[in-house]
């Protein structure tokens, strides 16, 4: 057991943890995206989906706790590794020229921390309704008596500053995924000439899907879109 613990704390083991927790978070991001895109199918679809999640009881709580654990592990490992990396080069070069690395790769901790700040805001905004108490209030129900998620989202995104914050956060998440997803294959030791396209293109492809998909909702609502069935 102690040798396994040592392995997980080693450089290679920590990279594996980063990759596995990053992969789990990516799974959540994609699932969350597909769920939310149902807003384009109308109020009925989205509210029924939200109710279904709510009714999952222990399963929902299991997933939530798992997600928090994974998120905390990802962040804690990221901070530990970044501090170790800075300590490994105590004296900076007078002249340093990078030949290959990307902006996305050099700003992983920053883009990650901004995504963390966004996640906290997002939870306060829609899930807990702290910033907008009316979102969690008794009156936010549809004709079937379910929490009216579709209406809440429309009201939330009709605010220009709120929508802008969401779009900026998605762009940073996209930047994070651009390097993160490409990096993950190398960290997990997936290396085959016929899979080289993954490392080259997967980051950009996934980032594009996540950014375009997630931003489409606030942008559509700002442009005047109201899902079928929503009464404002």
């Amino acid at each position, binding site marked *: 057991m102690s040798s396994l613990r040592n*392995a997980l704390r*080693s450089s*290679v083991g920590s990279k594996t943890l980063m990759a596995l927790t990053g992969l789990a978070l990516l799974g959540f991001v994609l699932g969350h995206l597909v769920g939310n895109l149902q807003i384009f199918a109308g109020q009925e679809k989205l509210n029924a989906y939200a109710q279904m999640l709510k009714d999952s009881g222990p399963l929902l709580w299991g997933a939530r706790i798992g997600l928090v654990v994974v998120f905390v592990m990802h962040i804690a490992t990221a901070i530990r590794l970044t501090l170790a990396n800075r300590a*490994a*080069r105590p004296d900076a070069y007078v*002249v*340093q020229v990078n*030949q290959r690395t*990307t902006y996305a790769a050099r700003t992983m901790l920053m883009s990650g921390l901004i995504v963390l700040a966004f996640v906290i805001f997002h939870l306060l905004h829609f899930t807990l309704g702290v910033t907008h108490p009316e979102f969690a209030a008794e009156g936010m129900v549809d004709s079937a008596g379910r929490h009216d998620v579709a209406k809440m989202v429309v009201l939330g995104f009709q605010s220009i500053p709120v929508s802008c914050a969401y779009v900026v956060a998605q762009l940073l998440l996209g930047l994070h995924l651009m390097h993160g997803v490409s990096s993950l294959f190398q960290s997990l030791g997936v290396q085959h000439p016929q899979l080289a396209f993954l490392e080259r293109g997967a980051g950009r492809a996934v980032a594009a899907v996540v950014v375009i998909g997630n931003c489409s909702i606030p942008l559509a609502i700002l442009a005047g879109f109201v899902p079928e069935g929503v009464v404002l």
Partner: protein
Amino acid sequence: MRFKLHVWRQSGPNAKGAMEAHDVDGITPEMSFLEMIDLLNEKLLADGKEPIAFEHDCREGICGACSMVIDGVPHSPERAVTTCQVHMRSFQDGDDIHVEPFRAKAFPVLKDLVVDRDAFDRIIQAGGYVSVNTGGTPDANEIQIPKVAAESAMDAAACIGCGACVAACPNASAMLFTAAKIAHLGQLPQGQVERGARARAMVEQMDAEGFGNCTNHYECMDACPKEIHVEWIARMNRDYLKASLTAKD
């Protein structure tokens, strides 16, 4: 040709260093970079000054001793060369040239451009070998080595251990070096017995030396005079994980 050389001067391991400018004149295009420093050092000696300390040995690109960062890139921005194989024709007459030591916590500066790279030796000592029984001379070709394995092992074995990967890495990580050594032996039949133990021991030693962790910038691969590929790092990760997950201790 004439140049303005900005070179790092540091009198000892704990001394504070700084860049110092020197005008060098009378350089010919076919001179190597080290010969240019030799010429400057002769002038410094004649003027009664301390010559610039730098490491070198073979001067033919095979020993990896000539470690320094030239204009922000280990071994100079030229591709796939060691410093000793860089010639002054690669620069423009009148250029400002910046020369610094490799910088990493695990490679402390000893003097001027000379750094202590013993950390690499300790990584090799931890597992960069195969154990063989002594005795009678083995028959030639007793151990069959597939051609593909021999070629691939040779690609990894091209690493001369100069440390440019560490110097170029934004995290001062030694993963390209360590991975190349693990892949070199791990692909040959002779290296199989100790393969898992080797990966674990070398990674552990690498971590203990205070190198950083790879975050896949791949600067190392571009700086490497032998063009060692980062695919070996993926292989090291696989070997290390497998060995750690199946370890009996």
